[in-house]
């Protein structure tokens, strides 16, 4: 049993404080949703946890089983068991997924030559087109394919905690289900703890959270059970200091030729 414990976290960019004191504890096997309007600090939370350059931590801590993450370089946070599924996965020309993950396995002290098979297995599980495995990382992938690729890597790397930064954006409902099923399976198979950051409540119908937190203006203003997400759908964020409602994501067009095509594209 592992614990990711965030306490008193204050962070921002340059002079601007965006997170104004976050307290949040996720245990193995749990799914927590962090919801909030645009600009509430959701993505900042994700990147501060992973250590993206440019963010400055002013106070607080983020401990994974007691180990402080915030002082570690990004790659060591990954080795400690943290995974971030990015909202905008970056294209890395000329670099294959297999080569990249091999480096991680080697750096973690594992041997070479395990990644290829794991990729095949994971691709099969979520229905990721195998041809995409040999393409350079994310290059010319659709938005949906990129999110599948993030999920695939989560499956191969088997982290202890995964932060999902808007993993639902760009996915049609079938793809969203496939991604959600895989993450849900990880919570029971390998006791993955999940922090799902989302603007929309749509993913929460698929990835049923144990706890829902509402983030507004850099603070968690309310936490509750799954019923909180449903309430937000009706009443919007207004009661929590924001004007915007967590609208249902527009449904994907009914007949997509490519099931992974980005409906926003």
């Amino acid at each position: 049993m592992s614990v990711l414990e965030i306490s008193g976290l204050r962070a921002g960019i340059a002079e601007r404080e965006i997170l104004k004191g976050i307290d949040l504890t996720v245990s193995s096997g749990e799914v927590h949703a962090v919801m909030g309007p645009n600009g509430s600090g959701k993505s900042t939370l994700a990147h501060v946890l992973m250590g993206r350059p440019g963010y400055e931590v002013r106070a607080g801590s983020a401990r994974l089983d007691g180990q402080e993450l915030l002082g570690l370089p990004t790659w060591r946070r990954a080795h400690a068991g943290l995974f971030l599924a990015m909202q905008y996965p970056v294209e890395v020309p000329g670099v294959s997924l297999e080569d990249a993950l091999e480096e991680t396995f080697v750096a973690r002290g594992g041997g070479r030559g395990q990644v290829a098979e794991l990729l095949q297995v994971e691709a099969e599980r979520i229905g990721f087109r195998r041809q995409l495995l040999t393409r350079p990382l994310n290059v010319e992938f659709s938005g949906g394919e990129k999110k599948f690729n993030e999920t695939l890597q989560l499956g191969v790397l088997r982290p202890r905690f995964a932060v999902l930064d808007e993993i639902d954006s760009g996915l049609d409902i079938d793809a969203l289900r496939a991604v959600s099923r895989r993450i849900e399976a990880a919570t029971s198979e390998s006791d993955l703890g999940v922090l799902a950051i989302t603007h929309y409540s749509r993913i929460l119908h698929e990835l049923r959270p144990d706890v829902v937190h509402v983030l507004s203006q850099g603070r968690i203003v309310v936490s509750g059970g799954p019923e909180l997400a449903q309430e937000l759908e009706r009443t919007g964020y207004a009661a929590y200091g924001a004007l915007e409602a967590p609208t249902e994501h527009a449904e994907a067009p009914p007949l997509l030729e490519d099931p992974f095509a980005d409906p926003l594209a």
Partner: protein
Amino acid sequence: MSPFPADAASNLSGPPWLRARRAAAFERFQASDLPTEAEEVWRYSRIDELDLDAYSPLGAGAGVVVMDHAGLGRELPPALQAVAVAVGERAGLVVVHNGKVVRTELEPTLAERGVMLGSLVDDDASGEGLVGSVTDVPDAFVDLNTAFMADVVTVRVPRGVAVERPVLVLHWVDAVGGAVFPRLVVQAGEASQVSVVDHVASPAGLAAFVVPVVELDAGDAANVAYVGMQELGRRVWQVGYQASRVGRDAMLGSVLVALGGEYARVATDSRLLGLGGTSRLRALYFGDGAQMHDFRTLQDHDAPKTTSDLLFKGAVEDESRAVYSGLIRIRKGAAGTNAFQTNRNLVLGEGAHADSVPNLEIEENDVKCSHASAVGPIDEEQRYYLEARGLPPEAAERLIVLGFFEEILDDIHITGLHEPLRQAVAAKLETGPKLETAPSGTATA
């Protein structure tokens, strides 16, 4: 006044026409000045530092270095052997020692079909029209090459003959303080096909001056693929020139790889002279330590519906420098032409520097042209993405740099060369002293 004595040129062997050619070039060289950095095409270069007095031409006679070529004819130095192994099956091999051909092999079936490979010095008049047929004389160094070329390596493929496996030309430069003048002429007849790997290396620590000239002639509908690999030692200066002529519906592919040298320059001049001809020009260069790589390119369109596509990618780290300067010229009458020119540079250290200067000169209306250049560090987003997946910074950087060059490797159709080149690039990224202290390899002088 040249430090190179006239008799060093006139004592070189060869048929009368070649000796006359050398003498004329020597006269022109004597009468001309060496270029200076004040000239646009030498701007940003290190040519003002060149001290010709520090080098001596090779051959027979006073003031020259006399070489024994016998050893290399029997056994290749490890650096060349590695290239031969990587290339694998080949159509032919020429070993060139300090500019002199010491070994030639050609598949007998190709010889029967009229393919000719080897030294022109032993040839009669048939080579007269060949040498210099493609080159322009952009500067005194091409004259210097012509005056002092000990040999001319020729690859001649008759009309309609396809040489499927590569021809390998391996140069070994190991004359201490030597000035070496390799000359290669590839002539592909109408509708023929040939690929040539032209590799030059020298022992670590050796100081020398290499002035290679390469002439590539792709006849109508011919397909010529050229790979030029430069892995000279870190104290070698190179001032090279590559000229190509592309005929009607012909295809020329050239990939230059520059990893070695102290100051290593190649000027390329690709002329599209026949309707529908295409040249596809690529380069991969990577400097470290105090190296400098210098590329000047000309894509010269002189026929309608021609295409040139240039992509040069380089990296600089430590205190190294790189220069790319290129011109697309579209002459009157070259309507329907497509010309693309892209230069991208990764700057991997605060002390490293790259210049990139693309240029267009268009005299025709109905054309499609683009040029782009970029100089910058590794993309922070890419680095963060990989590190978030658990790659340590050195591994992330290595993969990103290798990935950056991968599209150039894709253009090297001899896939056996890919892995050694990846390893050579990766070796550059490893931290450690970048100085060569002791010579290594097989020196047969």
